[in-house]
């Protein structure tokens, strides 16, 4: 069971309070009514499904109720960071670096 840091509650909480909500940073096209079938397929169906770093959405549904984003490794299930909805994709290389330093210190 994951332990997830909610950027709004500013605390780590059990996965039981959260609901996963799929990939992050997939904006609904502004002109959605006018896009092509291919663009619609791209928006609605096609995903990266990465093995490794994923940017994904969570909702703290049984907590503050907010949707937020997370950067997580899909192999180790480790969270690198979580951040509020609407904030830009963080640069994970920094975090990776400091994670590594932490690991070394242990």
């Amino acid at each position, binding site marked *: 069971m994951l332990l997830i840091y909610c950027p709004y*509650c500013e605390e780590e909480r059990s996965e039981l309070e959260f609901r996963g909500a799929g990939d992050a940073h997939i904006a609904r096209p502004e002109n959605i009514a006018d896009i092509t079938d291919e663009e619609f397929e791209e928006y609605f169906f096609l995903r990266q499904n990465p093995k490794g770093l994923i940017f994904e959405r969570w909702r703290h549904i*049984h907590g503050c109720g907010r949707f937020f984003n997370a950067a997580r490794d899909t192999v180790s299930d480790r969270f690198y960071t979580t951040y509020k909805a609407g904030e830009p994709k963080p640069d994970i290389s920094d975090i990776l670096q400091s994670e590594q330093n932490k690991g070394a210190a242990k």
Partner: protein
Amino acid sequence: MADQVTASRKAALTARGGSAEAILTPAPAATRISLRAGADALPALSAALGVTLPTRPKTSASSGQRHALWIGPDEWLVFDEGEADLMAAAASSGTLHSAVDISHRNVAVIVSGPGVDVAINSGCPQDLSLPIFPVGACSRTIFGKAEIILFRTAEDQFRVECWRSFSPFVFGLLSEGAADAGH
């Protein structure tokens, strides 16, 4: 208009329960609103409601019978243990907000005794130790298969709010937790 009697309330929970370690008492009826607003509306709303809306996660503010619980960054549970009209109070603030009456949606159980945390931890994954969940702290969370709001009113007392139809479940699970808290 025919003459008629006024309909009376029937509470979802009536019986007390629990154990010596964790006594369960259905809380008396209260008025409640789910309050939503942006930061700029807070001073006026606080003034109108007579209680300062907290802005830090997991905190609450109380003034007499009135309590405001931080639920989310723009969400509060405000309740009054009396019969005050919170909707009217919020409306009088004149600010942009959403207040929705949920007095009957929620039911509360008061859990008190030395084993409160153990009883609640029978189904709630949060850390309820005092440093992490001090008196006055509050949080929406999960309890078994029901969502609840926890509000610590004393070292050995919590108010547990849940939706009406979940209250028998919440009370039932709390009862088992309370029974186990004695051991």
